[in-house]
C-alpha cells in the first residue's frame, strides 16, 4: 500500500463527503465477493468519514444461489448414475435437510472441481455416468460454462449436463434500487463482472435511478479511488458511469465472452437468496442445447421449489440484500462460524459473514 497515495485519497474522500448536499448517511454498495474480502481485510471502512457507509450486496455467487437449487443438487447427488460436479464452496452450504458434503459422506457422488473443464473431463472418463455441473456464478463464470456446453455438444458427450444457475448481476442491482428498502446512494460496480459486460452496461441503470456507478479494482487504493469518484459525483449531482479500473475493464467488455454466453444461454427469471425471483436475471439453456440442460435431461422440477423461509433463523437473505450487517444476525459467531456454518454467507470465503468473522466489523 502506498501510504502517501492512501492519505491523499482519504483527504479527497473527506472533502467530497462534506460537499455532498444534506447530512444523511451516504450508503455505497459493492456487489462483488472479492471487493467484500478486500474491503474487510484492509479495514478500509475505518478510513472513511463517519457519514460514508460501505455495504456489501449480493456479490457472492454461492451465497445468492437459492435454497431450492442447493436442495435439488443434494437430491441429484444421491441418485443412481449421477455425479454432481461443483465448485468447492458449494458443498458445505446447508440445504433444507442435508448438504452436498454430507450427502457425499453418505456415499453420494460429488466431485469438486476448480473449473467446468474438469467436469467435462469427468464426463469423457465416465461414459456410463451423468455428470451434472452445478453452474453457479455471474457473468465472469458463465462464458466458460458456455464454452464447455458447446464443446460437449460438438463431441456428442450426452452424459454431460449443467444445472443452469448462472446469473446476470445488473437485474439484481436494478431490483435492489427498485425495491427501495435498502438505501443505496451509489454502486461500486463489480470488477470481474465488468471485465465481461463492460463499463457501458451500467448506463441504463444510471439513467433510470440517477445513482453513480463506478467500476473499481481490488487494491485498497483502487477501492478508495472508486469511493472518491462516487462521492464526487454525488457532490456535483452528476451521476454517471465511471471506470477507474481501465487496465482490466473496457467500455464494451469482452465481446467474445458475451457472444459465447448468448450462443448457449437466454435470459430467464431466476430466484436469488434474499432477493426472490428477478426477471431476466437468470441464464436458461437455449433449446439448441437442451440435452446439456440437466433440468430437462433428467426431468427435474425447474425452477426448483423454494422453501418459504430461511433455515434455523439464518439471516443470510437480509445480509445479501445489504439490509443488515452480519453481526446483526443473532446466530453470527455464537452459533454460526466458518467451522459450523448455518448459512452460505458464512460458508463462502467471499461471503459477508465469513469476511466479517475473519477480519472484524471494519
Amino acid at each position, binding site marked *: *500500500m502506498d501510504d502517501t497515495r492512501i492519505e491523499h485519497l482519504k483527504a479527497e474522500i473527506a472533502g467530497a463527503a462534506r460537499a455532498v448536499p444534506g447530512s444523511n448517511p451516504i450508503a455505497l454498495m459493492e456487489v*462483488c*465477493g*472479492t471487493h467484500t*474480502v*478486500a474491503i474487510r*481485510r*484492509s479495514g478500509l471502512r475505518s478510513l472513511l468519514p463517519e457519514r460514508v457507509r460501505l455495504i456489501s450486496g449480493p*456479490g*457472492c*455467487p*454461492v451465497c445468492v444461489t437459492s435454497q431450492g437449487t442447493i436442495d435439488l443438487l443434494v437430491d441429484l447427488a444421491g441418485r443412481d448414475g449421477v455425479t454432481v460436479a461443483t*465448485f468447492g*464452496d458449494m458443498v458445505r452450504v446447508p440445504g433444507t435437510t442435508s448438504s452436498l458434503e454430507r450427502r457425499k459422506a453418505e456415499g453420494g457422488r460429488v466431485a469438486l472441481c*476448480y*473449473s*467446468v*473443464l*474438469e467436469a467435462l473431463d469427468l464426463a469423457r472418463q465416465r461414459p456410463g455416468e451423468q455428470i451434472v455441473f452445478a453452474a453457479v*456464478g*455471474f457473468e*465472469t*463464470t458463465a*462464458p*466458460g460454462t458456455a*464454452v464447455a456446453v458447446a464443446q460437449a455438444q460438438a463431441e456428442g458427450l450426452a452424459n454431460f449436463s449443467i444445472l443452469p444457475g448462472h446469473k446476470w448481476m445488473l437485474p439484481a442491482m436494478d431490483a435492489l434500487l427498485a425495491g427501495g428498502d435498502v438505501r443505496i446512494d451509489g454502486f461500486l460496480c*463489480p470488477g*470481474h463482472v465488468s*471485465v*465481461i459486460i463492460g463499463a457501458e452496461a451500467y448506463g441504463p441503470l444510471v439513467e433510470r435511478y440517477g445513482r453513480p456507478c463506478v467500476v473499481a*479494482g*481490488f*487494491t485498497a487504493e483502487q477501492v478508495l479511488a472508486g469511493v472518491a469518484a462516487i462521492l464526487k459525483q454525488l457532490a456535483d449531482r452528476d451521476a454517471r458511469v465511471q471506470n477507474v479500473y481501465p*487496465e*482490466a475493464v*473496457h467500455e464494451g467488455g*469482452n465481446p*467474445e*465472452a458475451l457472444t*459465447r454466453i448468448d450462443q448457449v444461454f437466454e435470459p430467464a427469471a431466476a430466484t436469488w437468496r434474499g432477493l426472490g425471483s428477478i426477471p431476466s436475471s437468470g441464464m436458461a439453456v437455449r433449446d439448441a442445447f437442451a440435452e446439456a440442460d440437466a433440468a430437462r435431461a433428467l426431468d427435474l422440477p425447474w425452477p426448483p421449489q423454494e422453501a418459504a423461509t430461511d433455515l434455523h433463523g439464518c439471516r443470510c437473505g437480509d445480509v445479501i440484500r445489504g439490509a443488515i450487517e452480519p453481526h446483526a444476525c443473532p446466530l453470527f459467531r455464537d452459533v454460526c462460524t466458518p467451522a459450523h456454518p448455518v448459512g452460505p454467507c458464512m460458508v*463462502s*470465503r*467471499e461471503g459477508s459473514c465469513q469476511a466479517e468473522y475473519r477480519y472484524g466489523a471494519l
Partner: protein
Amino acid sequence: MCLAIPGQIVSKEDGMGEVDIRGNRLRAGLLLVPDADVGDWVLVHAGFAITTLTPDDAAETNALFDELEGLA
C-alpha cells in the same frame, strides 16, 4: 470463486493453453481471449482466461494477491 488471477501464457493449442500462475502451470481455456498469444498476460477465472492484461497491470494485480495470500 469470483477471484481472477493473472498468469502468463506458456503454450497454446486448439483454444486451450498452459498458463503460468505465480509459478504453477495450469491448463486454461483461451477461447474467450482469441487474440492472446504465448507470452501474453491474462486474467484467469475458473479455468478460463477472461481478458488480457499489460505486464504492468499483471504485476500490480499480483501484488494484490501477495497482500491477500491464502485467499484463493
